[in-house]
């Protein structure tokens, strides 16, 4: 066993042994160690690594969209000569009915997709955590009421409820995000509640209470951080679903509005030309498919790596 505070010459193998130590000397070492072990398990799963590559690729493409595809995604070339061209060396994915380069639009669409996912995650996760931990911590009628509300939200199919919300709020990407977030939080609330129930009676919670900490402080300071990891894993598993729901809303004309290069809306445009100019619909759809497959592969691998029971 390596003591954590003894000066050690830095070597990769030494660092590895420190991480994999069976007897960690500190909580940080234990936590980093279990993280590293998860990473090792993940690395052995080739499909998960493909998924990780796709997700990292998406982030890179979104960051470097202007470098990869310097053209303007909103304004096309001359309508007379460059409309609905098939894929070629000049236009890798062809052009659409406005003579815009589909490749450029798909690349810039990555930004929108990532933006939607990120916004949904930062809105839905805190709501779910707050509702779930509150319900689980207080129990009793608070729990009954909050969980009943959660169940009612879960009683609608996700896309349908999102559709109804967007219809009420009006189409647009912000409203789509709100609608998806409103339909995502119940699952996180359920999970956070279950986690809270298991730790609510632990000694350290009682200790905090005896020290006079307020309920709010216990919830946010002690309970929520402990629920966070499992909720985060759940959110990762959910990301593909978020992308598909957002694309579905876009496809129905309720998400991002034209001329924004949103993938779902682009597929909807391509519908009119599906028989003769298949690439207009096929390419953005392929992008949705690849990205959501990437998130699914990664999520699947994560679940296997972090939950030994599911990996059996």
């Amino acid at each position, binding site marked *: 066993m390596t003591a954590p505070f003894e000066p050690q010459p830095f070597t990769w193998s030494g660092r590895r042994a420190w991480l994999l130590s069976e007897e960690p000397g500190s909580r940080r070492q234990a936590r980093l160690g279990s993280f590293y072990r998860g990473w090792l398990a993940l690395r052995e799963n080739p499909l998960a690594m493909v998924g990780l590559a796709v997700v990292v690729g998406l982030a890179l493409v979104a960051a470097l969209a202007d470098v990869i595809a310097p053209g303007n995604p909103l304004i096309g070339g001359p309508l007379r000569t460059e409309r609905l061209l098939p894929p070629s060396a000049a236009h890798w994915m062809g052009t659409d009915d406005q003579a815009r380069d589909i490749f450029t639009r798909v690349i810039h669409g990555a930004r929108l997709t990532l933006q939607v996912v990120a916004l949904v995650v930062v809105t839905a996760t805190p709501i779910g955590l707050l509702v779930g931990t509150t319900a689980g911590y207080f129990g009793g009628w608070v729990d009954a009421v909050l969980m009943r509300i959660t169940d*009612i939200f879960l*009683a609608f*199919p*996700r896309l349908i409820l999102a559709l109804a919300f967007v*219809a009420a709020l009006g189409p647009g990407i912000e409203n789509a995000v709100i609608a998806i977030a409103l339909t995502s939080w119940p699952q996180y609330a359920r999970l956070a509640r279950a986690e809270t129930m298991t730790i609510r009676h632990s000694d350290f919670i009682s200790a905090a209470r005896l020290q006079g900490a307020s309920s709010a402080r216990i919830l946010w300071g002690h309970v929520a951080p402990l629920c966070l990891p499992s909720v985060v894993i759940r959110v990762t598993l959910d990301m*593909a679903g978020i992308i598909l729901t957002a694309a579905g809303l876009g496809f129905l004309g309720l998400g991002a509005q034209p001329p924004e290069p949103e993938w779902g809306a682009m597929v909807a445009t391509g519908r009119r030309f599906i028989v003769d100019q*298949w690439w207009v619909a096929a390419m953005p759809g392929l992008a949705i498919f690849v990205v959501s497959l990437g998130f699914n592969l990664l999520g*699947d691998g994560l679940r296997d790596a972090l939950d030994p029971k599911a990996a*059996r």
Partner: protein
Amino acid sequence: MQARQEAPASAEAPERPESEAESVRTRVLRFLRGVGGLAFSLAVTLLGLLVVTFLIGRVVPVDPVLSIIGDRAPASTYDRVYRELGLDRPMVEQFWIYLKKVLSGDFGESFLTKRPILDDLRRVFPATFELATLGLILGVAIGAPMGVAAAAWKGSWVDQIIRVLCLVGYSAPIFWLGLMGLLIFYANLGWVSGPGRIGIAHEFSFQPRTGILLLDSALQGRWDVFRNVFSHIILPACILGYFSMAYICRMTRSFMLHELSQEYVTAARVKGISETRIIWRHALRNAAVPMITVVGLSYINLLEGSVLTETIFAWPGLGQYLTNSLQNADMNAVLGSTLVIGVVFVLINLVSDLLYRLLDPRVRRGS
């Protein structure tokens, strides 16, 4: 060592059942308690659905009065309708009015079709029902055996291939899959008929009765119509079926893996039972119980998927109706369909819950 429930104090259980009458009484009581609890939670959920649709209806930026009388009506008419709709009263009272209306089957009138919403829904529902049911049948028929195979050969190439197939089904946007299906199987290969439910030639010569065309044409012995309807439905049904197959297959696999690791499976092996029999008779029989819930859930997913596929296949069902209403800001129709889908969702959950009780001897007889 697995966690084990401590044997109850009555481990030295009476070898004779408690007197017959008493056991019947406790059973009836337990059943009634179960049904009562179920009915109560059902009622609360349905009420919640109504509250949600009601509230969504209130935040609509569209003025409900103008959508009825049009912009050119005089102010007096506007006031009259405003009061008729109860918009001058407090929210709670408005909700009460809404509740009474919905319970009496009055969902309002569609702005688009100028007909009562309920009539519209009754007209479009069979088409969606037919499509989603066929999709589900395909999904279960293919997904369940595939999940069993993946669990039986866990870690082998069979498992890997099935895993990828399922992940593709999870990940592909269903509307895109539908478009690609149309492009390949209809436009290029010509294996199936294109959009719509039935060919124009048959549409006028055929009188449907239940609205479920496959059933109607078979019952009337119109096999030409049946063939035509089948060639229309098979592609969207396969696409929806693939979608639910992926879900059912993954869940079957994980339930089977759970069952195959149980001690009773080892016990069956100890008895020398063949592996085939262990998988199909012992493990699957146990995995089937939680699968009921999964099948119910995937039916709901199919209703959701049908919203996106129906527009592509010009399928005159609930999904297309909802989409059309959405795009035309026909709020009454949107909320009506949402409510109906929510109710169907709740009912499916109820049915799967009841089936669960019926199939699992542990719940059925109470333990």
